[in-house]
């Protein structure tokens, strides 16, 4: 079936218009490339708007002890050394410059209270010092609006409400993308010399998640189908504090900023249980008694004293997300959970109503409006929610290029930066640091190359695939989506084991068969049932990659917890799991994960940024759990 499609030609095509996509498009355009940005929604609605707490960068405006070395070390320890060290290094070094650049482009960050008028920073889990530049609890909105307003004046073509269905190649290199406009259903071809995928995460694969509808893992699947390798797909972050009630908002995020502002976690006995869950890697860095944690809170958060002069250590509620999420899960499982199956997060007894409304306005608003709960008066109920994919397209850490020539990835879509667990605040900085690098390198590549050729006969096949649901007579897409979410939650969720993962893979096979027969009602005009049917192909690929990688890694590390292999393993500490397409099958291989060079590691240990014994634990060479 031949169809009348629209056609465009660009030097650089960016797919996905969240923080990473916008930043890379701005960069590519500034380099003189004819650049387009494709977004599945309207511009400015991407999942980045939901980022709340802040953007991590060692600006050292509040705590002068901060440095890139400490940020780098915190990121590696947070990621349990599953990170690609080079990405973590570039990130730690370049984040401050990227934050100041956002300010130059019009972002209005909150200011320090010392009268010096600098960018203020706050505490967040796993960061040694106050490090997150922020705008109340709507930092993501500030970031996306700043980039959006910069972008619309940068000569970038924006194609809104457009879904890419396939990447096209010319021999071994990338050549373009084919998809459809959601509003009209009309197909569209983009020819491009280089392409950046920055399509965000995969939250919608799980029934309890904090993500927008767009987070269906498109970039992972598109890159995989085009022959690019994926890595670290087993590392999925379950954020400890999602809403648990009412059911319709289950999973909706509650910012870590609540804990940064003094909020504490309690079980149904009223105990602050986090003191019981300090892992060896954080021992000595966090308060060990309630008295100590309260003294720190009083001095640092309430009185605003400089932490340099405070001898008490910060509360264990501020450990990294993987640690806190597991602690919550344990408490709930042990029967010490809250009424609706979570635990309590209490800010009401810690801060004045006025402070809460000022520091956490959208949290106040969210609970009041959606749960009839006044968080200035009573504790919130919270539980783990699928939040972030650490894995993704395997990229060259310095150029962000994938294993396919001309195809780049940035942001949540790329792998390596965060290792097995991301620290809060490191996502927004990831977007702008690696967005810029991807834009720069995609532009450099585009300038060196000629416009690739596209074989028109491929498009007819793609049209047939995209239209198939209108020919089918079976069920519509929504039940398949719901069953996929249940299968992932059950078989590849926060806790995994061999038999559950096998069950999950079996479920996915059955869902694939159902998807072949999925039907769409009506026509191609703005048809959500049809859109979901097409997104499901991507979600099933990502689900399978995730479950297979999780099966391969026989250890527990960060966002990958196995009940049958509960500790760090020496055999896997220096490996990364890579997924690639081989014929029609999915191939899983173990590759060596590049390690921090010995000289740099020695320097960090000497400087007191890292401890040698923690490294040993994370490498499975000393007991850690």
């Amino acid at each position: 079936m031949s169809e009348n499609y629209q056609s465009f030609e660009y030097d650089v095509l960016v797919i996905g218009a969240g923080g990473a996509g916008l930043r890379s498009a701005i960069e590519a355009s500034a380099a003189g490339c004819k650049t387009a940005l494709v977004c599945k929604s309207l511009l400015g609605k991407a999942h980045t708007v939901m980022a709340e707490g802040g953007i991590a960068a060692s600006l050292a405006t509040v705590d002068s002890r901060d440095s890139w070395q400490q940020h780098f070390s915190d990121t590696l320890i947070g990621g349990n050394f599953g990170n690609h060290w080079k990405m973590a290094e570039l990130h730690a070094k370049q984040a401050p410059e990227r934050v100041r650049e956002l300010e130059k482009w019009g972002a209005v960050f909150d200011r320090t209270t010392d009268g010096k008028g600098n960018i203020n920073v706050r505490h967040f889990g796993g960061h040694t010092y106050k490090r997150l530049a922020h705008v109340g609890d709507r930092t993501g909105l500030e970031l996306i609006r700043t980039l959006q307003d910069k972008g619309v004046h940068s000569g970038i073509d924006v194609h809104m409400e457009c879904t890419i269905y396939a990447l096209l190649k010319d021999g071994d290199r990338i050549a373009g993308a084919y998809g459809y406009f959601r509003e009209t259903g009309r197909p569209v071809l983009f020819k491009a010399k280089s392409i950046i995928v920055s399509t965000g995460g995969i939250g919608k694969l799980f029934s309890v998640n904090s993500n927008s509808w767009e987070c269906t893992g498109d970039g992972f699947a598109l890159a995989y189908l085009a022959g690019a390798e994926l890595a670290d797909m087993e590392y999925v972050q379950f954020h400890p504090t999602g809403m648990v009630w009412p059911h319709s908002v289950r999973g909706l995020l509650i910012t870590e900023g609540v804990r940064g502002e003094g909020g504490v976690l309690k079980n149904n006995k009223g105990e602050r249980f986090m003191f019981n869950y300090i892992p060896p890697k954080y021992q000595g860095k966090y308060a060990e008694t309630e008295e100590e944690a309260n003294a720190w809170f009083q001095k640092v958060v309430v009185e605003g004293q400089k932490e340099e002069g405070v001898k008490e250590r910060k509360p264990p509620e501020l450990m990294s997300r993987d640690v806190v999420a597991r602690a919550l899960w344990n408490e709930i499982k042990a029967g010490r959970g809250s009424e609706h199956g979570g635990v309590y997060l209490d800010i009401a007894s810690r801060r004045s109503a006025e402070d809460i409304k000022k520091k956490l306005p959208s949290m106040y608003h969210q609970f009041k409006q959606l749960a009839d709960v006044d968080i200035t008066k009573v504790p919130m109920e919270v539980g783990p929610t699928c939040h972030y994919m650490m894995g993704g397209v395997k990229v060259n850490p310095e150029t962000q290029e994938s294993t396919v020539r001309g195809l780049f990835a940035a942001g949540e879509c790329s792998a390596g930066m965060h290792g097995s667990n991301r620290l809060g605040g490191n996502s927004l900085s990831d977007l702008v640091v690696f967005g810029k690098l991807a834009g720069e390198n995609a532009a450099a590549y585009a300038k060196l190359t000629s416009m690739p050729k596209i074989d028109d006969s491929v498009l007819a096949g793609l049209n047939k695939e995209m239209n198939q649901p209108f020919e089918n007579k079976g069920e519509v897409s929504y039940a398949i989506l719901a069953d996929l979410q249940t299968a992932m939650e059950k078989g590849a969720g926060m806790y995994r084991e061999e038999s559950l993962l096998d069950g999950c893979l079996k479920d996915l096979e059955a869902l694939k068969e159902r998807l072949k027969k999925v039907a769409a009602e009506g026509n191609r005009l703005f048809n959500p049932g049809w859109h979901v049917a097409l997104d499901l192909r991507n979600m099933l690929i990502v689900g399978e990659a995730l479950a297979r990688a999780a099966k391969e890694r026989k250890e527990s590390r960060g966002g990958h917890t196995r009940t049958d292999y509960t500790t760090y393993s020496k055999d896997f500490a220096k490996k990364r799991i890579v997924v690639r397409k081989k014929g029609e099958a999915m191939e899983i291989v173990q590759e060596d994960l590049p390690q921090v060079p010995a000289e740099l590691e020695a320097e960090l240990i000497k400087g007191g940024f890292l401890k040698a014994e923690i490294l040993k634990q994370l490498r499975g060479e000393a007991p850690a759990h």
Partner: protein
Amino acid sequence: MSKIHMRVYRGNSEGGQLKDYDVEVAEGMVVLDAIHNLQATQASDLACRWNCKAGKCGSCSAEVNGKPRLMCMTRLNEFAEGETITVTPMKTFPIMKDLATDVSWNYEVNKRIPPFTPREGADWHWQQKDADRAQEFRKCIECFLCQDTCHVLREHDKKTSFAGPRFFARIASLEMHPIDGLDRTELLKDQHGIGLCNITRCCTEVCPESIRITDNAIIPLKERVVDKYYDPLRMLWSAVTGK
């Protein structure tokens, strides 16, 4: 689980009508949940925009029983038992399909606003109280409900000569930025037609972010225009001196 009765607009640019549905709902649900239930069980091709379902992205704007609202932040328990809930698309913008409207005009207006332009040699250190003023307007999630309700756009369709409250808030965020050095007063007067606003405050009422658009953005901007172009003393001075 209980059932509610809904009427939802179904149609496209060529026309349409309200359609009746009975929908299963549970405690705590919002209007958007009911719409999603409809899609999953009765109308898989029902078009509506949504993203975050948390009141942060401003995608799911519609009119619920005639009032401009975010569907994700409108709880079903706001309505009386047995009350029919009618959901229609935003009236000010052309209908694309069902609840989705063509809001591209807003993006065109935004392009015509000169971007943030820092003063030369500006001091990048400033205090929270200076940030506060700009931050209020930067809370905007671009749901366009203020544009939908504004009678200059809704009743009089002045899209060619009037930017609307969303973009007055946007301009205010720039004009009140402590470092911005550009003067957008002439644009406000001529291209963006701020004089057409007669301060009925409808925009402020519907803003889900509680931005005081009228009092804190539009009125101060109107004052700037008046000071610059309609101050009688200044007009006299100009007439005499030719400046």
